[in-house]
């Protein structure tokens, strides 16, 4: 197909040739993407090369080259702390979410009434806004009248009356709990889909061979789920790296900076301290981390679906 557009008059939509029409069809979408994603991406990069306090001036400040990046990687204990928090949160939330999700998938993949209804109910936490999830858990974990903290208090006597959001370690635990509660159902549905598409014969053969259910799961089922699991891990890493809404509404980074994730740090820098240039630079550092995982993710999905 010749890629050159012939110069021709506009002849009306109905008469337009496919060679021209196809560009008109994608034009609005490209406009949206260019305006709301590409433009911010490029100008954000530009901002990151400047010192710019939005509170002082609405115009871009002086050019500082890579200055912001240099400060960020060499001389910012707060950022370092956020990196550490993000790392801990990401590792724990990925592991917990996916294990819980896998457990739920195994438990709820049947077609009984109870299972089907449970699946429908479990979608609600995922369909709830992350902001509301954070608020709700803030309430549920309240030491005096929170339903959940009462439940935990009854189960683990040591935590009776504990003030979850006032203790650095417990606050991180709360953040992870809240995230697992929110996102495990999504991955559960993903795993249930994958389980359903396993060839039934492999399982039956192992059953006939007399494998126990535990062995069956770990030796037959799990290995076959590897591709899906890989994708789930990558997606969850990406989701965890950019977690923000719940942080704002659950802990707001506290107590102190013990739950201040990178995204939250950037948000605070930009919209609390109005240090836009520095915020943009740190945002790019975060984006670089995510890009690594996103690249692997794309590698995986294009491999599985040769286009």
């Amino acid at each position, binding site marked *: 197909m010749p890629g050159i557009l012939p110069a021709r008059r506009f002849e009306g939509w109905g008469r337009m040739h496919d060679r021209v029409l196809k560009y008109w069809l994608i034009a609005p979408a490209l406009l*949206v993407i260019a305006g709301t*994603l590409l433009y*911010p991406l490029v100008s954000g990069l530009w901002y990151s090369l400047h010192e710019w306090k939005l509170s002082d001036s*609405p115009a871009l400040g002086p050019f500082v080259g890579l200055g912001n990046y240099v400060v960020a990687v060499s001389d910012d204990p707060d950022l370092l702390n956020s990196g550490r928090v993000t790392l801990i949160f990401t590792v724990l939330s990925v592991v917990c979410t996916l294990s819980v999700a896998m457990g739920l998938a195994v438990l709820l993949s049947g077609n009984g009434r109870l299972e089907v209804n449970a699946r429908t109910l*479990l979608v*609600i936490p995922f369909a709830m806004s992350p902001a509301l999830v954070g608020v709700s858990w803030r309430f549920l974990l309240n030491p005096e009248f929170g339903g959940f903290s009462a439940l935990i208090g009854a189960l683990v006597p040591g935590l009776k009356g504990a003030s979850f959001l006032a203790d650095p370690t417990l606050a991180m635990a709360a953040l992870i709990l809240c995230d697992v509660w929110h996102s495990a159902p999504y991955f559960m*549905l993903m795993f249930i889909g994958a389980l*359903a598409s396993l060839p039934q014969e492999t399982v039956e053969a192992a059953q006939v061979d007399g494998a126990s259910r535990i062995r069956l799961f770990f030796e037959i089922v799990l290995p076959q789920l590897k591709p899906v699991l890989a994708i789930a891990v990558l997606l969850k890493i990406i989701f965890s790296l950019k977690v923000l*809404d719940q942080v704002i509404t659950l802990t707001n980074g506290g107590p102190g900076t013990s739950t201040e994730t990178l995204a939250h740090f950037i948000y605070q820098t930009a919209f609390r301290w109005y240090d836009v240039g520095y915020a943009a630079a740190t945002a790019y550092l975060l984006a670089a981390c995510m890009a690594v995982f996103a690249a692997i993710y794309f590698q995986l999905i294009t491999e599985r679906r040769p286009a």
Partner: protein
Amino acid sequence: MTEGSSLPGAIAAAPRPTRAEPVRLSSRSRRRIAGAARTLTILLVILVFFGPVVWIMLTALKQPRDVYSLSVIFTPTLDNLRTAFASPYFLGSRTLNSIIVTTGTIVLSLPIATAAAYAFSRFRFPGGNAWSLGVLATQFIPPVIIIIPLFVAFRSAGLLDTRLALIIANMSFVVPYSIWMIKGFIDAIPADMEEAAQIDGASRLRAIWDVVVPMAIPGIATAAIFAFVVSWNEFFYALVLSRQDAVTLQVGLMGARTERGDAWEIMAAMGLVIILPMLVLSRYVQRYFVAGLVSGSVR
């Protein structure tokens, strides 16, 4: 679709290969105990995952003094909702803003996304499928990067604290994801029908409208549910871009944090309004939104 799925029996329920068991009674009762344990576990799972939702909804209907007790039995009241609708919480106008922003996002995004999805599905572009993959790749840009320049741009355009700004910001993720979802559906529709329509005398656009769109309705509906859920739940862009007039339900939640501490009953009332549509749509949310997301990310 997850409804029809079932895990091979051995792991879920238990029809094991029947073989002559020497001690039949005991094995049967063992199985019964296992079944009961499973049921109990499922109930516990439901309690953990759905209990909090119920708790929030109950709290919304409690008298303030019951909120601060753990009681489950109480006289329901609409007082909290009434308070929430009044100053300074303005639940009414927040809800209206949410509805307008959500509807606006859907109405603007879907036609744009459908047109692009069709083009990506049917035509070849120089550069191959880098285009449609690129569209998806934009979704891995962290929102904190996007929001800074958007904030600056909206500020200089005088669009801060307007619903239009929120709609535009929402389109940044709704349009690309919808393109990807709808394209999957259109890919599965053979080209014969629209070719037949063109030979029958329809222009390409008319063929799209008469033939492709009606057949892509399930895909468009999936994208619509997705757009609804994510726009309705959007918090961060709205938090940064709104002050007073355009504040949505999600951001309104923050308003219930007063100097006197958190007004839980108000937050719960707002939470109720936020969750209600999800409950009403939960069947579709499961079938279309989650299924769409899952297939979009795994396939």
